[in-house]
């Protein structure tokens, strides 16, 4: 299926967001000698400051695509470019928030958030950025707590702060809200939307929650089953802040569920 629509330039684009180009990327895994293709000739471009959701059935290869964008792995073929430069390895301008918070259990909240600055050797002069990031996610009272003392939602907030403290140009969200309870998820969706609007970084969100995708993103890219191929590229042009009950969003949600073959129960 071809793209339903083409997005116009995102209105919130600021200078700080990075552009991302994915050109003809294919990837596969070797599992006990057998080759398992996961991505099949995927190409798309993300403009600076855009919020793009990658939507697809579970296990279709979306998360693999994010690992390629993050530079944690190299694709079998095709290229990925950030602002025109090929992505060859991880770089702190592209930070990932994973499905599991993966906080380091031996570090306090403050030290977890400080991780990136410490790894880049700039913590000594930039300590205030850690405080600011913790403030931003509303956990100032917990800076000395250890991860096992936090709830799931708080841990994921810390993971978000740990990413944001690096001033990313491209924020990569790999189902970051997937394991949270539905109330916390709704709160955090709104927080992510407002953070993105204020900061202007480019955001790539992998999710299998259609409502989350249409609520947050300017653009929803729908993938097929594995090996993932782009099925549709849909613009979501409702202004922010959005409302979950917006009939336009409901309509869009229904269309997307249709693309995934799941509209029968709607």
């Amino acid at each position, binding site marked *: 299926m071809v793209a339903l629509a083409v997005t116009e330039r995102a209105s919130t684009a600021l200078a700080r967001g990075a552009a991302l180009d994915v050109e003809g990327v294919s990837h596969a895994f070797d599992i006990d000698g057998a080759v398992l293709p996961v991505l099949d000739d995927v190409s798309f471009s993300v403009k600076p400051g855009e919020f793009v959701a990658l939507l697809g059935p579970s296990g279709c290869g979306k998360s693999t695509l994010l*690992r390629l964008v*993050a*530079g*944690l792995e190299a694709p079998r073929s095709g290229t990925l470019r950030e602002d025109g430069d090929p992505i060859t390895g*991880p*770089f*702190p301008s*592209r*930070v*990932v928030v*994973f499905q*599991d918070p*993966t906080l*380091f*259990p*031996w*570090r306090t909240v403050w030290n977890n958030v400080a*991780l*990136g600055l*410490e*790894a*880049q050797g700039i913590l000594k002069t930039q300590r205030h950025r850690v405080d600011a990031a913790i403030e931003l996610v509303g956990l100032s009272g917990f800076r000395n707590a*250890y*991860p*096992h003392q936090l709830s799931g939602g708080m841990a994921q907030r810390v993971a978000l702060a*740990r990413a944001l403290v*690096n001033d990313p140009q491209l924020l990569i969200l790999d189902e970051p809200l997937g394991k949270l309870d539905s109330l916390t998820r709704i709160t955090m969706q709104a927080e992510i939307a407002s953070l993105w609007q204020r900061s202007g970084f480019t955001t790539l969100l992998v999710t299998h929650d259609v409502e989350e995708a249409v609520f947050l993103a300017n653009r929803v890219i729908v993938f097929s089953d594995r090996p993932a191929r782009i099925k549709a590229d849909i613009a979501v042009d409702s202004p922010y802040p959005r409302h979950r009950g917006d009939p336009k969003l409901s309509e869009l949600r229904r269309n997307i569920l249709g693309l995934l073959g799941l509209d029968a129960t709607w």
Partner: protein
Amino acid sequence: MSIYSVPEAVGLPQSVEEGAAFAGRSLSLPRLSLFRLLPVNGSGVVASAAWAVFGLSCLWWEDRGDWSRTHEVAISAFVIAGIVLVTTLSGSLLGRFGAGLQKRAPWLLVLGLFLSLWEVATAKFGWLPLPFFPPPQAIVEVYTDDLPKLLDSAFASVKLQLGGYVIGAVAGFLTGVSIGWSRSVGYWVHPILRFIGPLPATAWLPIAFFTFPSSWSASTFLIALATGFPVTVLTWSGVASVSNAYYDVARTLGAKPSFLVLKVAIPAALPHVFVGLFMGLGSSFAVLVVAEMIGVKSGLGWYLQWAQGWAAYANMYAALIVMSLLCSGAITLLFRTRDRLLVWQKGVVKW
């Protein structure tokens, strides 16, 4: 008092005064209440009585042997009985010391009874054969009359153990991190580890004693070997089992390989490392004692051997007690260090 009609409340007096009033009347209460009352107040009194019994048991009958410290032991027992009694009666006035003693009162009671029984069974009626089972005063005599030699031995043991253990722990830790991190180091070191590691360090004794310039350096080597093997294996498995997700997170945040080793792999492996350090401590104690018994001319193991040669069984028990305190102290120290470094862990074993 309404408490008498509410059995649940009997064991829990609301205040000190109430508790004291309770203790006075406890004998007229049914058995169950007396039993419930014991951990609170009564057991201190009974423990004091047990120590008084121990003191009396020393004086009541004539000793069957020639021991010079019987009177001193009896007096000490009465002093302890007095301290326990005073502390119990003054209740919370003595603060933490009083509270700690109250908590340990059941143990003090059992200890007093055990000492009395030991005294009677050895020094007074000889139910246990002498000289293999010396009475308490004989062991006290060792501490008062042979103290310098015992202290020298203890000091020599600590020195030998500490040197070997530190060398073994550091070497084991570095080896473990290297094999856990680098494939090529693992390729070369792993087979050697598998070949040599499981060998009990004591099996090297004969070779070590003639290849090393001194028995002291040979023993240090053996203790290091006994410590190093478990520390290496556990550190290695700790580093190898670190979740890849941690590395992914650190790498996307800009971490270099040195950061991944020092700030991710090692802290994540620390709980394993401490298990290795604990196991290494246990096996190195065994090597220490054997090495001292066989080759080194000092230390507690040597003292034991020497005491056996003179059939001085009281000295052996005295040395055993010192050894037990030192080993237990070393483990306590290790666990304290672990608790401090691993505060982030939930539910660690309290030693």
